[in-house]
């Protein structure tokens, strides 16, 4: 061995100091398992939220549909009730019924139109007391049976000369 312990020179040597070498290290591997789980979880969550939302909207719409059905039924019921009451009103307000009630209270029809002129206080027409009790038309207020269907014509015994048209 030689007495001179020399430093081993770099082959492409000059005397300038060498820069510090970059230290290599093992890059910690990013966990592939964690990343691949997060994405599906998000998607699943979104889908679940969407489904729940859809379900809620559906339930709300169904409830509205039921309410609609209920209200429609109620409207129908009230419509029928209105018709029933209208029939009753028509019956009570009919001239036939009013005449019967009026007659029951002792009222008689007035067959002599007379008017009072409010501006002058003058009576227009000829006032005549209405006859007591059912008048000429009074008895007509009580419903009477409709006459029977007219019988077929009986053949004439003989026909006479033209002699009509008397008034």
């Amino acid at each position, binding site marked *: 061995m030689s007495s001179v312990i020399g430093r081993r020179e770099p082959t492409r040597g000059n005397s300038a100091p060498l820069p510090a070498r970059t230290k290599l290290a093992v890059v910690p591997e990013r966990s592939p398992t964690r990343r691949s789980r997060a994405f599906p979880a998000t998607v699943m969550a979104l889908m679940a939220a969407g489904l729940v939302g859809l379900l809620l909207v*559906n339930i709300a719409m169904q409830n509205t549909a039921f309410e609609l059905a209920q209200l429609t039924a109620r409207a129908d019921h009230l*419509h029928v009730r209105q018709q029933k009451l209208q029939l009753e009103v028509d019956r009570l307000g009919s001239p036939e019924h009013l005449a019967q009630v009026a007659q029951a209270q002792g009222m008689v029809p007035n067959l002599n139109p007379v008017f009072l002129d409010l501006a002058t206080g003058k009576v227009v027409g*000829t006032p005549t007391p209405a006859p007591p009790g059912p008048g000429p*038309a009074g008895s007509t207020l009580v419903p009477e049976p409709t006459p029977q269907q*007219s019988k077929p014509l009986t053949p004439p015994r003989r026909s006479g000369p*033209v002699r009509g048209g008397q*008034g």
Partner: protein
Amino acid sequence: MSLRRRERRSAFRLRVCLLVIAFVLSLFAARLFQLQGLDANAYAAMATSEGSQAVTLHAERGGITDRFGVELASSIDAVALTADPTMTSANAPAIAAILTKHLRLDYFSTVARLRTSNTRFVYLQRHVPVWRADAAMAALQTAGLPGVFTERDPLRTYPGGDVAANLVGIVGDDGSGLSGLEYQYDSTLSGTDGHATYEVSPAGERIPLASASVVQPQPGIGLQTTIDRDAQWYADRRLRQAVLSTRSDWGAAITIDVSSGQIVQFSQVPSFDPNHTGGALQPSQLTINGVQTVYEPGSVEKVLTFSALTDAGRVTPRTRIAVPPTLRIDGHQIYDDWSHGTLHLTAAGVVAKSSNLGTILASRRISDQRLSGYLRSFGLGAPTGVGLPGESGGLLAPPQDWADINHATIAFGQGLSVTVTQMGAAIAAVANGGRYVQPTVVSGYLQPDGSVRPAPPPSTHRVISKHAAAMVTKMMEAVTTSDGTAPLAAIPGYLVAGKTGTAQRVDPITGRYVQGQRTISFAGFAPADAPRFMTYVVLDRPRDGSFGGTAAAPVFHDIMSMLLQRYGIPPTGSKQPPKEPLTW
């Protein structure tokens, strides 16, 4: 080495998978093309028929109202009660007991129906209002008795009962009009049915949120008539009393608003209650005597003859006519209705006394053509077009066929036939100052939105001059005085113009006059110097010897008094004019 082999194998697998997927997808595509492109219509039709249900949405029938909007006919919701006897025969007595209680059905016939054999469908009761049917169905359900069902069966109600029944008409079980206005305006009233299509589950339940297509029904158009319900009711009752007391075959009364031609009341006896037709229809229920029955008008027609004579300038109220006891024309001996020697009557006197012979002599002053022309202009011999079904035009022979006897008898109202509407409209023309207005009964159409579309105005034309009409009115005023034939028609305080009619009746089978059978009538208007209404009353074949002046004139008086009060028409206040002399 092994790595490379593995790569090659996986690439191979990938290609195979791709091929398989492509093959499957191409199968799908082919099937899709087949479904959508080739068989699309067939499958769509199948889907529609399987997965959806079509429902008819019935249009509501339009109502019929009077001139003030009061309902004369309206539709209400009703159902038919039906039963499946295979389900009900075991429990028939129990079911019938419940139905009898709620619906006033006959117990025994209901039991019999519930036990009908060899069928699965019977009607128990038709046209049941929904509220009654609901009560009965609820009771059946509570009692646990199945087999009774309901189906839609709308009910037409007539709130006025028999008021204007013949005019308004009726509808049949299928809801279509059978008579009167219900028949004449059926297409207007009935509207257009709509339909709805729903998707249904295989079990037939409607899928709530599935798509549905709905075509809304078009409700029918209602009719507003010119009838005044209350006046109509009063006239109906008054006329019925007269028909019963005179034992007439039928009676009719019409009131026309003279300036508009609107028919205010159009009563008829016999009538009927359309709410209780009992399933069996009588011919009288479908007849509107006022437009469908013709008769000889008798002396009321003299008004038209004298209208023609005055308009032609041949006669004035004071024209002197010497009336002989009798006239012989074409071999026929003609008399007045009362025996008399030679009378010296004025034209007004001829009208007031209703002399046939005087009318014949006066009518000879105009030709057949001229008289016929006037009568046709007054609306005789042709339908008036009032808008009611089956209107008759009456009978008026063409003037070239007239012999002397025809001219003579037509002049006093025999030998021609008219309807109540024709004659009423003709007298109304005289009241309207000589201008004829076509009579109408429908004034407007009630739109579903509540508005009213007015009917086209009636046609109108002048028949006689205003001056001639005034002269004829003067002659008619004498009729209701104590010297005339109808003092019972006079209304105290008012000037009333009128004319009685008592015509011999023609047997429709033999076509000959029947001795002792008459058609009696009265037509008039008030106030005579400013007429508003014309009322015409006809009683056919009275059996108590009544005349127009004794039986028809009082009916006119009562109807007219009621109308003058109701419409607030005071007396015109004019002094009773100096009477036209009746004799000379």
